[in-house]
Structure formats: structure tokens, C-alpha cells
């Protein structure tokens, strides 16, 4: 996936001279995850910018660059380091189009490696997606495959709205084919395997986990449909509703904490709009309402295959 993102960014830099990348350690080093490896050498230090160490500065300066006609792609090094930039993201980046009655357009992408499962230290495993999904004016997307990573990063760069682009860091080294033709629209969910008994709704790092659970369930004779949301704001209620409309059962999976998480939004919408077609309550499989634990606890703390299978059982028990 790192290579897919790198290729996607390279393509974006090639296609539009106004695109530039900025972040800590992204130039000489190529980023701590090497997502921008080699790009400074090929596009120069005015387009692949090693910034001072200051996250508010990265996003604040990106706003000014966008006002001057540029399309900045910011890298915030880790999920837990986005908060110093939260003021710029929430009070300025998200709101300037609205404040200016549409006169100011800020095509800024904020890339954030996110999620757990890599055995790391504190602040390096968080899932901040709903802070941003709850902020009007931002788009929030996340990829789960190299194919999507390649296309979605280019679509995010081409988008005229600010996009928070969440990269599931534990799948950075996942391999996969890229079909260069006809990507899905950025805001569209994708049904990964189709199924008939229950719908598992996942995004980003939990999609491969959900797919594995679906395979195990299949061995037990259960047909599980997995919907990869891809975009959390806006989110594709049409695809999710159509799936649940058929299966009558929904399980939502995310690493972020349980309460007030994205699963609550999915559950609320399904009970509101598919009430008469639901055979069971919407079940959530999530992180817990605690800070992210020490890494030696994370494998059980994170939603894994067994917890998803338990949730499928519970849904099917109604």
C-alpha cells in the first residue's frame, strides 16, 4: 500500500503543477513510513517540503497556500499528533468555504497514518476519524487496499474540498493488484464479498479483519456480505441500506472507541431508514471506551476475527 500511495502522489504531482506535499520528514527521509520516498528528488524541495516541526503550522500554512491557488497535501506523521493541528482543521480549514459564502475553496488533503496493531508506543495507534467526520466542511475517507490507496489519494487531491485521508498503517505493507482503470467515486462504499445472511460494515484497518471473519463464517455455512465504507463523510448510506435491506442484519466494526463512534451513526441511520427490514439490532464491534492500551494488550483490545464472529452469531440469534 505504501507503494500505491507513493505512485498515486507521484501521479498527482505530475498531473498538476499546483500540487505540493508538505510535512515532517517527508522530503529527505521520504516519510517515517516512506510514503513519499523519492518524490523530493524528482520534484524538488519546493514541491515536497520538509516542514518545521509544528502540526498547526503545516495545516495553517496549507490554508494560505490553497488561498494562493495551490493544492497542498499535508502529512501528519501519526494519528496521535493531529491534535495540535485540530484548531486549524476545525476552526479554519473546515469553515472557510462557508464563512466566505463559497468564495474561498481549500483543496487541502491531510494524510494521517492511523489505527493500531503495530506494537507501537502511545499516540501512535489512535483512530481519530469521528472528530473529523463530525466536523461539517471536511470530507473523511480511508482506504483498505493498495488499489483504493492509489486511486483515492489522487481523487482526494483533485477534490475541491478539504479531505482528511486516513491511511491504515498496519496495512501499509499489504500487497495487492492495482487496476489503473475506472476507480469508484471517492464517496462510494464498495461491497467486497457479497452475502445474504448478514452485512458487516467496516472501513480502513478493519476491512481485512472483516473479510477474514467472513471467510471463517463461510466455512460455517454463513453468507456474510462485507461493505467497505471507504468514505465516512459523506458516507454512502445508499449502498449500506441496500445491503442491510437484503440481509436484515448489520454488524459495524471499527477500532475507535465504542460510545459516540461511527458505528452509532450507522446504527442510528439503519434503525431510522430500514426499521421495518431489520431482523436484529445493529451490533457494534469496536475498541473500548478507554485510551488506547499498551501494545501488549492491543491484540485482544482491537476488534478481531473472533469478536466479529461473535457479533455475527449474536445478530443471527434474533
Amino acid at each position, binding site marked *: 500500500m505504501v507503494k500505491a500511495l507513493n505512485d498515486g502522489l507521484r501521479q498527482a504531482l505530475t498531473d498538476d503543477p499546483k500540487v505540493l506535499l508538505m510535512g515532517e520528514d517527508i522530503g529527505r527521509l521520504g516519510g517515517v513510513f516512506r510514503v513519499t520516498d523519492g518524490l523530493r528528488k524528482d520534484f524538488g524541495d519546493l514541491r515536497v517540503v520538509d516542514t518545521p516541526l509544528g502540526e498547526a503550522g503545516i495545516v*495553517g500554512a496549507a490554508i494560505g497556500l490553497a488561498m494562493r491557488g495551490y493544492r497542498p497535501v499535508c502529512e501528519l506523521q501519526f494519528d496521535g499528533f493531529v491534535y495540535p493541528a485540530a484548531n486549524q482543521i476545525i476552526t479554519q480549514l473546515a469553515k472557510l468555504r462557508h464563512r*466566505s459564502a463559497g468564495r474561498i475553496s481549500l483543496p487541502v488533503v491531510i494524510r494521517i497514518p492511523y489505527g493500531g496493531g503495530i506494537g507501537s508506543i502511545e499516540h501512535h495507534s489512535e483512530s481519530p476519524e469521528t472528530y473529523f467526520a463530525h466536523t461539517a466542511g471536511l470530507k473523511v475517507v480511508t482506504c483498505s487496499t493498495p488499489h483504493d490507496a492509489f486511486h483515492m489519494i489522487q481523487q482526494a487531491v483533485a477534490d475541491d474540498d478539504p479531505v482528511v485521508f486516513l491511511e491504515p498503517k498496519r496495512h501499509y505493507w499489504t500487497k495487492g493488484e492495482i487496476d489503473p482503470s475506472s476507480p469508484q467515486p471517492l464517496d462510494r462504499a464498495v461491497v467486497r464479498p457479497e452475502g445474504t445472511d448478514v452485512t458487516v460494515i467496516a472501513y480502513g484497518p478493519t476491512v481485512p479483519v472483516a473479510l477474514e471473519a467472513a471467510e471463517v463464517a463461510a466455512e460455517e455455512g454463513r453468507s456474510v456480505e462485507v461493505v467497505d465504507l471507504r468514505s465516512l463523510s459523506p458516507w454512502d448510506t445508499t449502498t449500506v441500506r441496500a445491503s442491510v435491506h437484503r440481509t436484515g442484519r448489520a454488524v459495524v466494526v471499527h477500532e475507535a472507541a465504542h460510545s459516540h463512534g461511527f458505528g452509532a451513526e450507522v446504527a442510528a441511520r439503519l434503525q431510522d431508514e430500514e426499521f421495518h427490514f431489520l431482523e436484529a439490532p445493529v451490533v457494534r464491534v469496536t475498541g473500548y471506551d478507554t485510551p488506547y492500551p499498551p501494545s501488549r494488550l492491543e491484540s485482544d483490545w482491537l476488534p478481531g476475527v473472533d469478536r466479529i464472529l461473535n457479533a455475527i452469531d449474536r445478530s443471527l440469534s434474533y
Partner: protein
Amino acid sequence: MAPTETAPPETAPSDPPIQLLDRSGKLSTDDRLPLDLATVDLATLHRDMTLTRRLDTEAIALQRQGELGLWPSLRGQEAAQVGAAHALRRQDMVFPTYREHGVAWCRGLDPVALLGLFRGTTLGGWDPYAHHFNLYTLVIGAQTLHAVGYAMGLHRDDSTGTGDPDRDTAVLAFLGDGALSEGETNEAFVWAAAQNLPVVFFCQNNQWAISAPYSVQSRIPAAQRAAGYGFPGIRVDGNDVLACLAATRQALHRARSGGGPTLIEAVTYRLNAHTTADDATRYRPAAETEDWAARDPLERLEAHLRSTGAVTDDHFTDLEQRERDLAEQLRAGCRELAEPDPASPFEHTYAQIPADLRQQLREHLEFVSTGPQDGERQ
């Protein structure tokens, strides 16, 4: 035990701010800040300061009458703002806070447009690109980083150091003394210095951040901080329009030429409360305000104009008429500001309205157009 109350720290001694026009209206020169008076239109400076003050006075009156929800007065800061603004070229970009009504005036904004934000008809009110004057920023210090980013763009556009006066461009970012304590302002200074960006930070040190005196923010004059970042800082009398003009001209010239950033500290005073919602008598002595009122920026320029005969009596009588016209324009214009369309928040949140938001818009418009049903809901 209760903690021992410590005395507030002494502010480090410093040289007086550079002054070219003293409080009696007498001109002087200063080698640190050369100004060719042949290039200065004193009458226009006086006109703009006078009309800016009138604009401010009328807005306060409109707030008192209930036409505005709030107004942040600039009274006392006319020299700083008009002086700085007169140093701008058309293409230079300004990033204001929320009190730069005098700069807005000089940038040619319709003064009525300044009222919309405070009347609640808009969150902005003007085209930032048409006037090269960004929207007001209410979050303290946030705009300093936008200025830095814009300056990074200028650098990449080859819009500095070409020698072409129509091409070379700089950014003028306004901030107050309170903003000096914000982390984002610190980041802006770091970025501007490290990249030698064409940006001028113009700090109106008006002594008070709502109720916090300058000693809460700093033990040294703001201008001295610049050295720590690695660019020049200059401290001028902010009630002296000529010193403010000269310092900003010098700094913008350096920025446009590729010489990098400058921090200007204009030492001035907020003669009114923070906003019309604030009560300054709760935290500062009347004697202090009276002392600063005696250094009024408009009075000293007027004294200079009258004593030197630099303008005729017609200037003053014409100006009185313009003030009356402006007052009338503001009173009528404020009441005529269009009510916002209930659809507008939905239309401008994203470039295109997402499907779910369009549905919310439909429901909201239906609710708005139907209104409350008799007997059903209060």
C-alpha cells in the same frame, strides 16, 4: 496554606518606540526610520483616519440601538491601521484579525460590508480576493499561519525579488499583543524565518487582551522577540501614523525584495473596551485611559496639519460632510443588509452538496416555509 501572591514581573526596560510625529503634532526625523515626506499624502492619511473613527463611532451606536450584536472598537488605533494600510500595494495580501476596520476602509471595502458579521447576516461579508483583504479571523493568531502559507505561495510563484513593482508582492498579517502568546503565532514566526518568507507581522500592541495587561503576555517588548526567531523587529509609536507608515513601507519593501519577514510592534492603546459587550472599568484605571487619550493619533495629525497649513480649511469642512455622508450610509446600509438565505449554510459547506445534506436542506426549507402549525407546536 494559601499560595503567596507574587508581584507581577517587571517588564524589561526598553528604548521608547520610534516616533516621527509627537503628541503635539511636531515632526522629527529618526535615522532608523527614514521617511521622504514628499511621498506622503498627509491629507489622505488624515481623511482615512477620520472616516475610520467615524465608522467605528457609528457602528458602536448601531450596536447600542440593537442593530448589531457586537462591535469591536478600534478607537485609538487609527494611526497604526491607516499608516500600515497606506504602505500596501494593490497586489499585497492582508490577513486581518477582527478589529482592522481601518485597514478594510483603506483597502476599499464597502464599509457596510464590515457590519454584516456583527449583525449576524453573514460570517464573512466580502470577497477576500477582490480587495486582497482576507475575511476577519476570530480565533486569535490563526491568521498568522495563513499569511505564512500565502507567502510560501508567493515565493513559489516568483512574486518576490523580480524588481517589477507590479509583480513583487508581500503579505501583511495583523495580530494583537494577546496573539503573541499563542502557539500558532510562534509557529508562524518560525516558518517565516526559516523560509525567509515575504511576510510582515504587524502587531498592534494595544496594551490589553480583554482584561489581561501586556505584562501577562510578555516581559519584553514584542519587537525584541523577532531577534530570537532571526528576523528584524521594530518598535514604533502606534499612535504616530507617519512612524507606522514608514515602518510598514520599509518592511514590505524588504519582503517584496526577497529580504524576508519583519515584526513591527506598534505601541498603541485600545481606548474603548474590548468589544461593546465588555466593561473595561472592571480591570483598568480611568487615569490610564485618560493618559492615552491625550496621545490621540488623530488629534496630533490634525494639530500638525493646522499648525503647518499643509491643508486648507476646505479639507476640514469637506471632511465633515464626508463624515455625515458615511454615517448616513452606515445607518441606512446596516438596516438594508439582506437577511441570509436559510439555504446558504447548506450550499456553502462543500463545493457540491452531498446527497444526505441535500435531504437535510429539503427538510429544513420545508420546515422554514411552513412555519409553526397553529395548535400543534409552540
